[in-house]
């Protein structure tokens, strides 16, 4: 039986923890709103971009562009996008597990794997494997399009120089506030079918005037398309991270409340037992005096 004082200190401690988790929950909720707004803002851009890309790629023949070129795959690069901070439930763990599986599968096929990590969680997880080629930390909070561009350019450079023959992205997809799933996506070589499928408008495909030629436009658009993809993945992860943290912290707060409840019960029982014991003493003493 723990002493009264021990239980009381413990209750105080748990209460403080609950306060912290509750504050984190509210901060995450506010940040989630910001991240969702950012996603919303970006959506119209992405939709129009994909539509234009779809129109364009249906109008020309692919394969002429280095970024679309399919090569025999020897080295696969994986872009892992995770959050910078923990305390968001199993969100990062899921992404990392999926990456691990993918690595194991690819290596089983005799391919080499190199990693580009965005977000501290991924970096520290893969540090010891020696596979990390490039790392980007502390971006998730305030990233902008140009951050995505830096990353995309780096990956494209590596792809074009032949260091990697295929690039995939693993990131956390934001399904809803309650559900976030890790997702894997083909990144490079860019597949025109996938592009065409996302841009489902074929209003006047092929009837466009192009300036400069379609080829030159593609030279500009393909890197842009990469930026859009990377930026999109980062947005998804950022929103998912906050959503995951929100629910994790909500659970933690509830757990704290449960603990406080049961500790209070123990405390009261101990107090009652103390009082009873003292009463018995007094009664016993009084009896003895008679």
């Amino acid at each position, binding site marked *: 039986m723990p002493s009264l004082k021990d239980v009381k200190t413990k209750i105080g401690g748990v209460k403080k923890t609950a306060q912290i988790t509750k504050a984190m929950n509210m901060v995450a909720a506010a940040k989630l709103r910001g991240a969702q707004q*950012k996603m919303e*803002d970006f959506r119209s851009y992405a939709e*129009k971009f994909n539509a234009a890309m779809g129109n*364009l790629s249906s109008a020309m023949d692919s394969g002429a562009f280095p970024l679309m070129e399919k090569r025999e795959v020897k080295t696969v690069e994986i872009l892992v996008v995770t959050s910078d901070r923990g305390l968001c439930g199993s969100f990062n763990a899921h992404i990392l597990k999926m990456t691990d599986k993918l690595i194991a599968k690819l290596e089983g096929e005799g391919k080499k794997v190199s990693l580009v990590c965005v977000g501290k969680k991924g970096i520290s997880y893969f540090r010891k494997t020696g596979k990390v080629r490039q790392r980007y930390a502390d971006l998730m909070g305030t990233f902008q*399009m140009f951050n995505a561009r830096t990353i995309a350019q780096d990956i494209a450079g590596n792809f074009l120089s032949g260091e990697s023959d295929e690039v995939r992205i693993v990131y956390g997809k934001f399904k809803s506030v309650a559900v976030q799933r890790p997702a894997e996506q083909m990144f490079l070589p860019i597949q025109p079918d996938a592009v065409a499928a996302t841009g489902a408008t074929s209003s006047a495909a092929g009837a466009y005037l192009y*300036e400069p030629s379609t080829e030159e*436009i593609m030279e500009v658009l393909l890197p842009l398309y990469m930026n859009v993809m990377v930026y999109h993945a980062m947005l998804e992860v950022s929103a998912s991270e906050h959503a995951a943290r929100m629910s994790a912290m909500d659970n933690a707060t509830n757990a704290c409340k449960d603990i406080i409840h049961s500790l209070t019960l123990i405390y009261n029982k101990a107090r009652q037992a103390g009082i009873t014991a003292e009463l018995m003493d007094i009664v016993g003493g009084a009896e003895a005096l008679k």
Partner: protein
Amino acid sequence: MAEKLKLEVVTPKGAVVSKEVDIVTAPGYGGEFGVLANHAPFLSTIKTGLLTYKTGAQEETLMVSGGFCEVSNNKLTFLVESAERGADIDVERAMRAKERAEKRLAEAQAQKEKFDRTRAEAALQRALSRLKVAERRKPS
């Protein structure tokens, strides 16, 4: 000029302009081009520069950088990395950026560093466009 064009300027941070206009002038790949209503379907890349549009007698200017535009069915969509109105531009900052870019450009040229040069050139281009937009805003 009964028919109007629907102009939309969209950046990754959301739509900047969405309105009916009469004429649009934009910095295309091969130089400035103008678009009126009933233009043929058209797709072009956009360089850093000034985007001007007119509704009646009212004229407005934006600074846009890097992207492309699409024209179809009297709809004109610009997808650019950034678009700024004159009122949002910090002239002093743009001035500083211009000086910085010029310095870097000179350095890069001295060292024949191609990558730095393209970057400095782009930065200079942006700064100059910003200044131009800011200038137009002022009633001179």
